């Protein structure tokens, strides 16, 4: 089992395996659809082990679908996905959970549960199914609580926390899972500025110090550009650019894909000006009064 997680030796001889032992994720020409609506079209992507990558793009571009695809929650209509060298379709859920942890945007709890109990759920793929957590599991939970800084929240009912705090708890859960690949769906969406930066720092640390492969979806282009060496830009289900931030976020791409003047993205000052004349120009004109009938 541990060999399945970290072992890249021996996999080279696997006839169905990949040629590249350093690959964390391999997406080959995937097309994916919900009902008859294509959400990913002919997407190919390779992520090497130890890479840190962010997926950006407008709403509906297919970012979350891509994450669901990588997590094995959906089966592509065509194409294939590899996870640490093995076809994702051939791994059972437990094997996937030992290789890959996911931080969702949010989750609901039907029953009262303490913060440390929620974080402890991250050990589920590793625990003995009958005897429950062992000392190693408890240590991993304690370490995750410590690393994400959840100490002050320990003992509290996770349902009483703010959205931002809950997001940190979910991050703690994924850290406790200790998977070599970490996927995150908008990990900063409910966080204040300080915690946004802190989460980014933590991701960088997990990536650089622990060698965790990190794939995150972010809306915030400046966070993405600042903290990730590699950006992948999705638009309408297609991968339109892949590379370091300056190469991906060119003025014409930002204008074309997001429909926003890149100046607004880089210098948000004028948007918050109290001057009423600075109202967005694209605002719809008021409807003309209907003629009396």
């Amino acid at each position, binding site marked *: 089992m541990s060999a399945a997680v970290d072992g890249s030796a021996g996999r080279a001889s696997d006839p169905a395996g990949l040629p590249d032992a350093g690959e964390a994720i391999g997406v080959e020409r995937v097309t994916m659809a919900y009902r008859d609506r294509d959400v990913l079209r002919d997407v190919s992507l390779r992520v090497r082990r130890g890479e840190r990558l962010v997926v950006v793009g407008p709403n509906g571009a297919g970012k979350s679908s891509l994450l669901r695809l990588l*997590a*094995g*929650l959906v089966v592509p209509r065509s194409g294939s996905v590899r996870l640490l060298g093995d076809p994702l379709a051939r791994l*059972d*859920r*437990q*094997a*996937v*959970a*030992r290789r*890959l*942890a*996911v931080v*969702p945007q949010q*989750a*609901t*709890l*039907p*029953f*009262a*549960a*303490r913060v440390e*109990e*929620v974080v402890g*759920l*991250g050990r*589920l*793929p590793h*625990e003995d*199914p*009958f005897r*429950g957590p062992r000392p190693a599991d408890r240590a991993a939970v304690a370490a995750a609580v*410590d*690393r*994400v*800084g*959840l*100490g*002050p*929240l320990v*003992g*509290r*009912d996770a*349902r*009483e926390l703010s959205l931002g*705090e809950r997001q*940190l708890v*979910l991050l703690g*859960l994924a850290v406790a*899972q200790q998977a070599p690949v970490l996927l995150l769906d908008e990990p900063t969406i409910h966080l204040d500025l*300080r*915690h946004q*930066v*802190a*989460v980014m*720092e*933590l991701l*960088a*640390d997990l990536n650089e*110090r622990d060698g965790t492969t990190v794939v995150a979806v972010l809306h915030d282009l400046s966070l993405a550009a600042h903290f990730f060496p590699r950006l992948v830009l999705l638009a309408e289900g297609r991968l339109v650019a892949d590379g370091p931030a300056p190469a991906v976020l060119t003025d014409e791409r930002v204008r074309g894909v997001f429909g926003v003047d890149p100046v607004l993205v880089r210098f948000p000052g004028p948007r918050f000006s109290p001057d009423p004349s600075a109202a967005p120009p694209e605002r719809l004109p008021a409807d003309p009064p209907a003629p009396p009938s």
Partner: protein
Amino acid sequence: MASRGQAIGVAAEALPRPGAAGRVRGLAALRDRPRLLLGVGLACLAVSLVLGVGLGSVAIDPTDTVGILARRLLGLPVPATWPATAETIVLELRLPRVLTAMLVGLGLSVAGATFQGLLRNPLADPYVLGTASGAAFGAAIAVLLPVQVAILDFGLLHGLAFAGALLAVLVVVRLGRTSPLAPLTGLLLTGYAVGSLLAAGLAMTMYLSGANLRQIVSFLLGGFDAASWPRLASAAPLVLLASGAVLLRARVLNGLLLGEETAAHLGVDVDRERTILLALASLATAAAVAVSGLVGFVGLVVPHLVRLVVGPDARRVLPLSAIFGASLLALADLLARLGGEIPVGVVTALVGAPFFLALLRRTRAGYEL
């Protein structure tokens, strides 16, 4: 700002712990000592067994009760100092009845905890997917049919109640099926719809039943007055095996705490496990209902009580629900007997409903749906 590698840190002033955990501080000590709680549960079980067997229209001395149980059940060399009638009452009348109540309490509590976890809905109970109305409709039809069969003390009523419960669940699951990772809300609503339909059928049969109405009503209220060894022996394997199999899958319910997708991320094969657990819990419910009729509130309240003390970990919630559900229903049946054979469903509702309301008020955070 945290430097690289440093813990993120959350507002440290948020230290006071309000809510359920703080309010029931006395119980909080038990939370981290599940073995102690297990001991308490087993002691409760033993006490309710002795009380249930000893008390009744003819009271039997507790030492005699323990003596009879020890001699006849455990084979201990206890000198028989009691009259032979006492032994007959204990062994032939009360013991099967108490054990049946325990069996039903166990099955309903485990099934309730399972349905609450699967549907991720604290208001779910074992009857939520149409089991109750299916069983009731089946039983009512049996009452109307002019046929008398009995195998192992089981009449047509029990057979049709069992079949009705399982059929209802089967229909609900067939109709309410959604995509593999979707929440089971659709199933819940389908259960409600199918239940209403069956309730209409039940109402019609009750209307047509004439002099047999009382028999249907007593099934609806539940009771153990007709308990017997053969009946217990045929229901027990189903309930115990199904509940035991549920207990072995506790980790699935833990995974589902944060939702279906998170469960999948944590290594749970959601679609498959949900089907298995639904089948097991429905089987336990149907078998319990077939012996006892519709005993309410046990399957709803007991898992919540246990969760309040030990938290949401299903590895603790399920076995403790089984134990406490068993002893609670045995005690409720004792109350029903001492009250002059009131239907046990009335007792559980009278005790359970206010208790549940208090529970809801106590947990300030409230249950989200």
